[in-house]
C-alpha cells in the first residue's frame, strides 16, 4: 500500500508534465491526494484484519488468559496501528518533500531564466531598453519566487499532513470498533468504508437536518430522522479534509489545527471506549 502511494507520488512528476499551468500545484494535489486516500485504505485494511486474525490463530485466547484486560488489548492494537500509520505517513512525507524540493528548484531556475534582470539592467544602461524595465522585471521575479515559496514548504502544509494522519487514526479506531462486534473481516471493511464515505457527506446532512441549508424545514419527518441518524452515527470526515485547500495556499490557523486535533482525539477515545464495550461482553 505504501509502495503504491510512493509510486503515485513519483508519478505525479509525470502528471505535472501534462498540466499546462500550475505544475507545482498539480504535484502537491496529486501527492497529498495519494497520501490522503492511501492512508485511509491502509487504516481500514490493516485494522480490519487484527481481531479476526488473532481469533483465527487463537493468539487472542493466549493473551487474554494472561492478566491483560480487554481494554488494554484493544488499546495495544490501536497503538500498533497508529504507530504503523505514523511510520507510513513519515515515509510518504519524506518522499513527497524530496519530489517537491526537486520541482521547486526547477521552478526557481525557470523563473530566474524568464526574468533576466541583469541583462535588462545592462540594456537599460546602454539605452536599448526603456527606463524601469529591470526594476519591473525584478519585482515580477521576486513576486513569483515568493509565491512559489509561500505554497511549498510551509508549516500549514505539514499541519495538513498531520491532519491526514489523525484522520487515518480515527478511521482505524472506527474500524477497530466495528471489528469488536463483527464476525467477519469482510463485513468490517465494507461497513467501515460505507460509514467513512457517508461521513464525507455529514456536513450536508447536518445542514439539511438542522434546516441551515434552506430546505430542511420542508422535509418529511422520516427523512429528517434519517439525516439526524446519519449526523449522529457517522463521523464528520469533512472536518479533517483541509489538505486540498492547503495545497491551494489556504492558511490554517494554529487554533483551527488545535480544534481539529481535539475533535480527532475525542473520536479516538470514544471509538476505543465503544469498541471496548462491544468487546467486553462479547463471547469468545
Amino acid at each position, binding site marked *: 500500500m505504501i509502495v503504491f502511494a510512493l509510486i503515485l507520488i513519483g508519478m505525479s512528476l509525470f502528471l505535472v508534465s501534462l*498540466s*499546462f*499551468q*500550475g505544475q507545482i*500545484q*498539480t504535484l*502537491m*494535489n*496529486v501527492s497529498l*491526494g*495519494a497520501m*490522503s*486516500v492511501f492512508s*485511509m485504505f491502509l487504516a481500514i485494511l490493516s485494522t480490519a484484519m487484527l481481531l479476526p486474525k488473532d481469533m483465527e490463530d487463537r493468539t487472542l485466547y493466549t493473551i487474554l488468559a494472561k492478566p491483560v484486560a480487554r481494554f488494554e488489548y484493544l488499546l495495544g492494537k490501536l497503538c500498533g496501528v497508529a504507530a504503523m500509520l505514523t511510520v507510513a505517513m513519515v515515509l510518504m512525507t519524506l518522499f513527497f518533500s524530496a519530489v517537491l524540493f526537486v520541482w521547486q528548484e526547477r521552478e526557481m531556475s525557470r523563473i530566474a531564466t524568464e526574468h533576466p534582470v541583469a541583462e535588462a539592467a545592462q540594456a537599460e544602461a546602454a539605452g536599448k531598453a*526603456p*527606463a*524601469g524595465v529591470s*526594476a*519591473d522585471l525584478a*519585482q515580477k521575479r521576486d*513576486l513569483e519566487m515568493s*509565491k512559489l515559496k509561500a505554497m511549498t514548504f510551509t508549516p500549514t502544509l505539514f499541519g495538513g499532513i498531520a491532519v*491526514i494522519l489523525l484522520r487515518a487514526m480515527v478511521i482505524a479506531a472506527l474500524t477497530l470498533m466495528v471489528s*469488536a*462486534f463483527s464476525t467477519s473481516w469482510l463485513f468490517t471493511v465494507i461497513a467501515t468504508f460505507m460509514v467513512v*464515505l457517508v461521513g*464525507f457527506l455529514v*456536513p*450536508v446532512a*447536518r445542514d439539511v437536518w438542522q434546516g441551515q441549508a434552506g430546505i430542511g424545514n420542508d422535509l418529511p419527518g422520516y427523512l429528517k430522522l434519517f439525516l439526524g441518524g446519519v*449526523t*449522529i*452515527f457517522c463521523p*464528520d470526515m469533512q*472536518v479533517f*479534509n*483541509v*489538505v*486540498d*485547500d492547503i*495545497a*491551494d*495556499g*489556504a*492558511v*490554517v490557523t494554529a487554533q*483551527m489545527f488545535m*480544534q*481539529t486535533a481535539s*475533535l480527532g482525539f*475525542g473520536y479516538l477515545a*470514544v471509538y476505543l*471506549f*465503544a469498541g471496548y*464495550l*462491544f*468487546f*467486553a*461482553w*462479547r463471547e469468545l
Partner: protein
Amino acid sequence: MKGRILGILVIVIWGLARLPIETRISAAQKANRLGDFKITATLRQQAGQAGFIAVLGGLRAAVADLLWIRAYVAWQDTQWGKMKLLFDVCTALQPRRVMFWDNAAWHMAWNASVHALNDKAKVPEPVERWRNQQQYLKLGEDYMLRGIQNNPDSWELYDRLGWFYRDKMNDKLKSAEAYEEASKRPGRLDYVRRQAAIQLAEVPGREDEAYRKLLALYREGEKEWLPTLLKKIQLIERKLKIPQNQRVYIPPEDRLPPE
C-alpha cells in the same frame, strides 16, 4: 447484548455532544475559506461516479487538476461549450484557485469570443456571430466577477478585469475602477496603479481626478516616469489647459510635439 446497547449509547451521546463542536469548526473553516466547494449535479456528471467519490474522499484538488487537463484538450479542439462545462466544475471544486478563474475568463473572453466572431463557416450571419461573441465576453466577465467573489484578496483577478474592460469592452471607467481595486490588494505589481490613473484619464469628466493621480505617481520619482505616464500627463495638461509655468517637467525625449 448489554455491551452492544452501552456501546451504541456511547456513540449516540458522543454524536449529540460533538454536534455543536463540529458545527462551530465547519463554520470557522468556511469563514477561513476551507472546504467551501459546492456539490452540484454538473460535478457529478462531469467527474463521473468514481471521480465524484474521489472528490468526497480527499482527491478534490487532484480531480480538479485532471478535469483542467481535459479542458486543455477541449481547447486544442476548440470545443468551447465543453470547456465551459469543465471550467464550471473546476472552479466549483477549487473556488480558491485564482488561476482557474483567471484562465477560464481568458479563454472565454479572449479565445472563444474571437473564434465566435470569425467562425464564418459555421455561422454565416455577422449579427449572429457578433451575438455569440458578446455571449462569450459576458461569460468571461462572469468568471472574473465570480472569481473575485470567491477570492476578494486577489489583485490578479481585479487586474484581469481591468484589462478586460479596457481591451474588450472599451469601458475605461470600469477599467480604472478595477485597476484601482487591484492596487489596494496585497502583493500587487506597480503597473496596476499606473493603469488606474491612465485609464481614468480617458474618462470624460474625470480628468481632474486622473490628473491628481498621475501627478502623485510622477512625484514618486524617476522610476515612475515611464513613457505612457508622461504622455498622459502632457495630454491631460493640454486638455485641462494647465498654464505652461504650472506644468510638470518632462524630459526632452518624452515631450510631445507642440499643439
